[in-house]
Each structure stands twice: as C-alpha cells, then as structure tokens.
C-alpha cells in the first residue's frame, strides 16, 4: 500500500508495464525531435537580442534615443498646402488615436547594410508606438523593446505573442504574407503593466 512498504521492492517490470514505458519513451523522443526540426525549418523564436543601458531614473535610455531619431527621421509629418507644419521649431507629426501615435510608412525606410529594413517599435505605458504601414510579401526586422516596465506584444487576430523587456532589444523578422487579406492588425499588451491603463494599451499595424 502507499502507506506501507515491502522490504525489497526493486523488482523487474511486468510485460505490460515494459511496453507502456517503451511507448512513452518513444513519444518523448518524437516530441524532443519536433522542436529542433521546427527550428531548422525556419521556426526560430529566439532570433536575436541585444542589450542596451537601461536606467529609468537617470534620464533617457539608449533605446529611447534610437527610437526618437528613428521617428524624427521617418514618421509622417503633418502637411498644410504641401508644407510641413512646424510647432516650436520641430516638424509636427501626423498622429492617430487618443494616445497620439505617430505613423511610419515602412516603404520610405531604406534598407540597412544587412539587406533588411529595420523598424523600431516601442512599448510604453500605455501605448505601442509607432503605427507601421508594411507591404505584403516584404521582410522586415522589427526591434521590440520597452521604455519603462515589462509589456507583452500580442499581434491580433493572429495571436502571435512576444515579451518586451526594458533593457533588451528583441529583433524579430516579420513578413506579412502575400496571400494575407487582412489590412489592419492590432497589437494588444498582454503583460500587466499598470492598473490605470494596462487594459487600454493597444497599437496597430497596417498592411498594404
């Protein structure tokens, strides 16, 4: 019984038990092989990560600098009669939605020397910025990171989920499929990031 013990219990398995053990070891091996197989056929989740100095109390962090430069360079500007509107010496950016998210058309971002278009996506309480306009069938490297606390990157309705950590730049290769019909994708934050607005944190992606 489970509460008493025979003295010598190191006994060989019965035939049925042996068969079961072989079967489940076989199943374990199959499951173990599936992951490297997927990996080498192109399903690599953990593509590349780079770290940067993150120190929220001592001013602006490195990713924020990179991100601001990226936005200033490529975000769509507000135009009046074909001229860029200047507010306080800076060009005014076109924004969308109540949290004023800038828009970046990926087609104007030049390829880097590694042959990819690099895009920077920042998560912060409580928004994802900017909104990208991507082209179907083109491959992009999207740098995902956070300015403040941890966030979740959940691409809906595909239900593709990643984690965004401050201090770490997660580079993900993404390619909107050429047979994809959807034009708007939502990015939902699925990591708790603060009680006043976590449930409102959302971003967008357009696919042309």
């Amino acid at each position: 019984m489970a509460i008493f013990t025979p003295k010598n219990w190191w006994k060989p398995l019965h035939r049925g038990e042996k068969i079961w053990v072989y079967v489940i070891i076989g199943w374990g091996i199959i499951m173990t092989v599936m992951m490297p197989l997927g990996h080498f056929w192109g399903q690599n989740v953990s593509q590349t990560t780079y770290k940067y100095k993150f120190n929220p109390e001592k001013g602006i962090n490195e990713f924020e600098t990179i991100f601001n430069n990226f936005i200033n360079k490529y975000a769509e500007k507000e135009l009046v009669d074909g001229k860029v509107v200047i507010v306080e010496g800076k060009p005014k950016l076109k924004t969308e939605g109540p949290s004023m998210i800038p828009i970046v058309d990926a087609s104007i971002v030049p390829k880097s020397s590694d042959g990819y278009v690099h895009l920077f996506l920042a998560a912060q309480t409580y928004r994802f910025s900017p909104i990208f306009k991507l082209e179907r069938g083109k491959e992009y490297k999207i740098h995902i990171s956070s300015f403040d606390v941890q966030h979740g990157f959940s691409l809906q309705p595909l239900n593709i989920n990643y984690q965004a950590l401050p201090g770490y730049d997660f580079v993900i290769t993404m390619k909107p499929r050429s047979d994809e019909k959807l034009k708007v994708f939502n990015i939902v934050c699925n990591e708790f990031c603060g009680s006043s607005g976590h449930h409102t944190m959302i971003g967008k992606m357009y696919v042309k």
Partner: protein
Amino acid sequence: MNGNKFSNQFRTCEATGLKVHLPAQKLFWVNAVSAVVFLLVGAIMAIMVALTRGFPSAHIITDSMFYQFLTAHGTNMLVFWIVFFEMAGLIFGATAILGSRFPAIKLAWFNWIIMIIGAIMVNYSIFWEGTDVMFTAYPPLAAKSPFFYLGIVLFAVGALIYCFQFLIALVIAKKEGWHEGSLPLFTFALVTAAIIAIFTLLMGAITFVPALLFSLKDWGLDLGINIDPAVFRLTFWGFGHSAQQINLAAMVGIWYLLGTLTVGAQPVNEKLSRWAFFLYIIAINLGSIHHLLVDPALKSTYKIFNTTYLMYAAVIGSLIHAVSIPAAIEVAQRKKGYTKGLFQWLRKAPWSDPGFSGLAISLVMFGFIGGVTGVVMSVEQLNILHHNNLRVPGHFHATVVAGTSLAFMVVAYKLIPLALQRKIVSEKMAKIQPYVFGIGILMVIVGMTFAGIMGVPRRSWDINSLGANIFSSGAYSMLVLVGIGGVVAFIGLLMFIVNAVLSVFFGKKIPSKIEIHNPPYETASAKAVTAES
C-alpha cells in the same frame, strides 16, 4: 510502559491504527487551518475576478481593485493555501505514516509564526497599501512598499526550514527506530515534493531578496541595487513554476494515498512508481523555462534543452503515474470480484466516496486537460500562440485547481478524522462537493482556453476598453462561461470550506487512546542511549 529517551506521547487512530504524535498533531492543525483561511480569502477574490472577466462590460469592481484582487487571488491561492497545506502534509507524512515523532517542535512553531506573519504582511500590502504587481511582480513594476517582498521572503524562509526539518525527521525516524527500511510511497512522494521545494525556495530567495533590498529605497535606504528584468524573470520562474511542481509531486502522492484509503489499492510496481518520482526530481524544474520561451536574451539551444525536461523525462514520469494509479485501483477492485468486462471495476468503484470521486476528477482533469495543454504550450514554437493569453490560466486552473486543490480538499475529508480526531459534519455535502467543484472549474477551464485561442489576454480588467471588434463574439461568450463556471466552482469551494471549518471546530470528537510509545525497532543509537541510562 518503560519510556526510554525517545519515547513520546502518541494517539492511536481507531479506524486506521496509525499512531499520531500528539505535539505534531497540533502543528498539523495550525498549518491546515491557516491553509483553509487563506483558501477562503483567495476564493472571495476568485469570484470577484471571475465575474469581472466573465461580464467585462458590467465593471463589477473598478480597475485598480481588479488588479489588487487578482494579485491577492494569485498569492493566496498559489502560495499560502497550497504551501500551508503542504506543510501540514509534510508533518503528517513524517509522523503519522511512519508512526514517528516530529523533531524540534519549537522550531516548527517558529516556522509557522514567521510564515503566518509573512502571509499577513503580503495581504496587508495588497489590501491596505494597494500593491497590484500580480503574483509575478516583474520589475521595474514595484510593489507599494517593501512589506510585499518582505512577506514573501519571510514566508519562504519558514517553509524552507520546514522542508529541512521534514528531511531530518525522516533520518531521526530511522535512527531512533520508529521506522525501518524504505519509506512508504506516499512519504517518498513528499520527499520528492520537499526536494523540489528546497530548489524552489532557494530560487525564491535569489529573486526576492534583491527585490526587497531594492524596494527599501521606499523607506529611504537606497542601496544602489538595480534589478535586471531578464534575470528576475529567470529566477522568478525558477521559484514560481517550481512551486507548482511541488504541488504536482504532493498531489501524485495524495492520489496514491487516496487509492489506498478508498479502495485499498497498492502500487503495482513500487520500483516503477519511484522511478517516476525520481524523474520528477531530476528533470521537472528545468520546465520553468517555458515561461521564458518568447523572451529576449535567451537563445534557442538553451530554451529547447530545458523545455524538453531532459527529453521529456518529467512527462514520462507523469505518464507512468497515469497508468500505475488506475492500474493499482483496477487490481484492487478486481480482487474484490468486480472482474466482468473491461470496466466493471470502474463502474462499481465507490463513486459516492469523496475520496474516490475527487481522485478520479482530479486525475482526469489534470491529465487530459492540464498535462496535455502544459506539454503543448511548453513547445518552444507553439508557445508563441499561448504566451500570456487566457490559455495559460486555462492550463493552470486545470493543474493547480482541478488537480492539486481538489486532491487536497478531498484528502482533507480523510485527514480531519484521521489526524484531527473530528468527524466530518456533513458527509452528504462532502459527497457532492467534488462534483460541483469539478463541473464549475471545468467550465472555467474550457472558457479560458477557448477565449485564449481567440486571443483574449490574461490579466485584463476589461477587454472592451481596447476598442470594439478586436475580439470575436465567440471570445465574449467564452468569457461568460468563465463567469458562470466561476460561480459554480465558488459554491463548490464554499461547500468544502464550511464543511471543513465546522468539522475542525465543532465536529464530533473521535475518542482515541493516548499512550506513551517507544520506538518499535532496535537501532544502534537507541541501544547506546539505553546503555547510558
């Protein structure tokens, strides 16, 4: 009876003939009662959270309350209820099962006191200071004051000392001659649980002590510590998920125990069952990595190696138990004459005994839903579809709630008479409780899983506030199922709590003989003591 140095006061259980060490019985009592108190707190939080999620537009509680309540639900249920009950289980497994004494009773009381202080501190921080960092407490998000971290550290220290005390109790039982030979399988399962717990609590210390030191700056003590979010996640899950593996090992042990107590089942092959527990010990804690599969900073080789639990060794362990427990029951039932066809043994099983029905519901829900979804979502690539959406709570409500909590509840029906000498107040309510709870929690699990498949995130107060048409109408109806199931499960849970509390305090006392007992076996050290005196 002439007492020697090791003799102690024991009470003999009339029904089972087990000897219960009296000082240990009091310890068992406080730990079990504390567990049920925190279960009640967690249950009230659970119903609020389930209703808020189930009917998001109704806004039953405000957003800040929701996140506080969710934090309280997680910590009270996953940590306080389960660990207190496991501490009670360790005391039971080391004493009553072995017929032995529990050493260092005063230290054990000290452990209980710091654990209870820790648990109260955490609840204080959540309800009065408004800490809402969730069970996970990922930095840079910070609790409202150091009390939250301090509470967890104190609780973990108390539990860690208990685990070592348990291991030492086993050594003493053998040395003083209370017990001889190998440990019974149930106690062996508890050894597995205690070993996993020691790893868990060490990782907990590595996680929460720096977090505590960091948070001391709220009290004006800036130690210049920075917490790396990726490192915190790694060590936190070494604590957070391994803590659930303690439950797994304890629960499987309880399944074997329930099989014995209800139909007299005995493990068909002790070696095979013990191998399965050994596979847990070596491999199961690697599985903590499956929380970090879509994290930056870790590479695929590391993720894949760890998430396979050393080639699914731990899964193989579970699959061994999945067969050896029903096989033990089948053998026992067939011996009683239920030999017709394939399943007469199962049909004629004591389904009105909560111990058996609870065992069956717990085993089936844990295996078919919890275990399978767990393995699927810890595949590196597949995790991308699961991470942080409602499928994850769907999975762990099948394992921790339908599996562990239900097994703990039904074993409590057996332990209250056995270890606390009280009759269960309402046997009738105990009879239907596992079914009510099982149906409720099944609805919760199904609702959560399918809502998660449709993309609904976990830990969200109101998915409508993201905007209209982001989730399909199917997702909303699945959330309604969560809400309704939550109510049913809550009723089932209350049936247990009311019954257990009334039985412990007002149940009919079962009389039993109190005697001084000597260790029944002669050992070298016992001989040395008698020679001295």
